[in-house]
């Protein structure tokens, strides 16, 4: 009797674990440093990848010899739109020079179709645009930078040697000068 109990206990542990593993591998594979977009949200007609913070975080920790310029913005943020041409100019001027500009939209879901997409199309934005959609801001803001109070525009510039966070807007000259300190 006791032995039976023991066997069933062991079986349940083994199968329990196996089942869990199966459930895990059923999700999209999370390769280290690869961003994982959300899916199945019924947002498939939005032409930008949509991430929660876990899916987005690898973008903040690439270690591939490139310099990343990660700009946090939203269409409702006027100073963000004012500095947008400077990021676009950097993106085109540093094309092929190991600099990646990524524009991270913090627009709310109800603005993706009505404001974000029209803005990007109308202004022919060439830099990569992604959506960060994660309401647990108090959890993820410090993971971008401990210094960040939560205001936008905000920009992170980093490469494998250097990392600086800016909770402010930029002129083209300011942005270019900052970027140069990462490249030379």
């Amino acid at each position, binding site marked *: 009797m006791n032995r039976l109990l023991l066997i069933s206990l062991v079986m349940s542990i083994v199968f329990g674990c196996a089942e869990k593993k199966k459930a895990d591998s059923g999700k999209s594979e999370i390769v280290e440093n690869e961003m994982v977009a959300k899916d199945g949200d019924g947002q498939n007609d939005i032409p930008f990848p949509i991430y929660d913070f876990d899916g987005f975080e690898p973008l903040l920790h690439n270690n591939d010899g490139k310099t990343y310029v990660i700009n946090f913005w939203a269409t409702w943020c006027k100073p963000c739109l004012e500095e947008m041409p400077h990021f676009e100019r950097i993106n085109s001027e540093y094309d092929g020079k190991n600099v990646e500009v990524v524009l991270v939209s913090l627009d709310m879901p109800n603005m993706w179709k009505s404001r974000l997409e029209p803005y990007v199309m109308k202004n022919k934005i060439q830099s990569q645009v992604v959506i960060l959609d994660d*309401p*647990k801001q108090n959890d993820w803001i410090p993971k971008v930078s401990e210094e*960040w109070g939560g205001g936008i525009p905000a920009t992170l510039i980093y490469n494998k040697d250097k990392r600086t966070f800016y909770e402010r807007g930029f002129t083209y000259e300011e942005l270019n000068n900052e970027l140069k300190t990462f490249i030379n």
Partner: protein
Amino acid sequence: MKKIRILGWSALLLIFVASFAVGFKVAAEHNLDDGYEIGDLADDFELKNVDGTMVSLSDYESAKGFLVIFTCNTCPYAQAYEDRVIALDAKYKPQGVPVIAINPNDPSVKSGDSFAKMIERADKKGFTFPYLLDEGQKVYPKYGATRTPHVFLLEKTAIGNVVRYIGAIDDNYQNASQVEKPFVENAVNAMLAGNEINPKTTKAIGCGIK
């Protein structure tokens, strides 16, 4: 033996004094920063309300504290939280902690945040609390507000209004029904019960103050 003991005590005393010195140094550094930290005394103000009167914290003789909320008409986050701010006032004004809303934006930069538009907004949403204009933008830098909405919970004490919590209203701007951590409610409840507030500060995305 006795000598060793005295030596031990004086070492302890030294550590004690040294730790105080470090404490003071940290406090001094904090004071150099812009804006209030937890435990600081918040200055009173006298600002124009949408009803035309001037409002100060000292007007509220029987208050136990204040929810000073920097907010505005135009910011989508501020708008997303308007109903929740009204709910906070409804819940905590009777308990002695009224909402005092302040628009920190400069109307000459942000015309949607003009005093006339503030009156419209307060009327349309049925604000039950004062909605003040930070004319000349003198109050928000003192508090260290950086965005809207930005909450400062003050406790009225014998020595003045002590800052007890700084940050966001809750942990889900998108959907009030999916809030897991109502930061401000937890903070006010803890304050009124005399308990430790945890967390004392939180972060959120908001519209920069213009």
